């Protein structure tokens, strides 16, 4: 538990939060690792956790009938993987494949929600930070979808 705290306080995502707040969040967290080539979660599976990558690379892939498996996005050190734990139906929308050995902090979604409800100020702080990550990622995805490098004809 204190090992997780030591890791979290050094992550930019938690910068500016009090030790007490980080300690509370750490109660929902555990250190995990995944080997290259393994799968963290698969599309359609129950979504309980979110992961903050400490080391390594993760590819989010989508399987389609027409195009086979496509990598939608890769995520790296300092980035979160997985938002589907937040809202029903709590199922993953993608596969998360490990490109290179991963060390991560795994947060238990239901526990994190409970902690947030018990301390709404902490809950709001976490939600604001998560939203910022999600909005930035959505804006980046919009540019990616524009296919800006193609010849328009």
């Amino acid at each position, binding site marked *: 538990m204190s090992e997780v705290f030591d890791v979290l306080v050094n992550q930019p995502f938690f910068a500016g939060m009090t030790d007490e707040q980080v300690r509370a969040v750490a109660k929902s967290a555990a250190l995990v690792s995944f080997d290259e080539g393994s799968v963290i979660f698969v599309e359609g599976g129950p979504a309980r956790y979110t992961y903050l990558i400490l080391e390594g690379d993760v590819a989010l892939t989508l399987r389609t009938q027409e195009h086979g*498996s496509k*990598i939608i996005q890769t995520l*790296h050190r300092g980035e979160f993987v997985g938002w589907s734990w937040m809202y029903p139906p709590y199922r993953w929308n993608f596969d998360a494949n490990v*490109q290179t050995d991963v060390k991560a902090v795994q947060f238990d979604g239901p526990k994190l929600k409970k902690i947030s409800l018990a301390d709404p100020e902490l809950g709001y702080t976490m939600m604001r930070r998560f939203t910022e990550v999600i909005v930035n990622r959505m804006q980046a995805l919009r540019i990616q979808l524009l296919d800006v*490098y193609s010849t328009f004809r």
Partner: protein
Amino acid sequence: MRPTARRILSVERELPDTYTLEIEPPGSDWSFLPGQYTMLYAFGIGEVPISISGDPSDATRIVQTIRAAGAVTDALVAKVPGDFVGLRGPYGTAWDTKAGEGRDVLIIAGGIGLAPVRPLVLDVLNHRDRYGNVTLLYGARSPRDLLFADQLQEWRGRFDLEVLITVDQAEQTWRGPVGVVTSLIGRSSFDPDAAVAYVCGPEVMMRFTIQELERKGFSDDRLYVSMERNMKCGIGLCGHCQLGRFFICKDGPVMTCAQMAGSCWIREV
């Protein structure tokens, strides 16, 4: 103002729609600065601005990388060695390499935008001891669309240059990053309070990149972009390339964001 007829020395296919032409220079004293362009004339069809993509220290040939996008560029990429093109220039402003001396350098390119920054990368590498950390971030559509793939591979092998590449879409066999080029910014090593950034690519990619660099702490006088607008005369006479109070053909294409002061958000007319 009149183009001179120059012989094409070689034509190399880079990608299905993109070719590199080597053209005989007009004279032994011909030279250019990284970031400059020439007006290339396909006889009887038309004239277009094309950046110079070769090594500025090699005056024996003018290297230009062209993507077939319409009538003139189609005609240019269909040329074979021995054919002639009309050439004017070099024109336009250059990447300000002096501004990067003694600092970390971040070069960010998207798609065909790697062509106009290649002379900059080569120039920086030719004088490597003048700079701090040098990083090239490159975004392409897919692994199949990486321009100058062999050279990128060679550059990645250097210990004094960090090269990070991302693509917008990839099969599962791709081992590298997938995502917009800005997602690489956080993974590279530079001092945002002192580094200089040079950015070239589609305008929307440059706008997005500028926002991200500003968020990281870059001031707009250390952010260089290459603006590509439709051109006719190339020498500030016709007004075709006007962007706000600038004529991109002579005030640009390379400008700082401080100079432009918001002009890069103005749409082409």
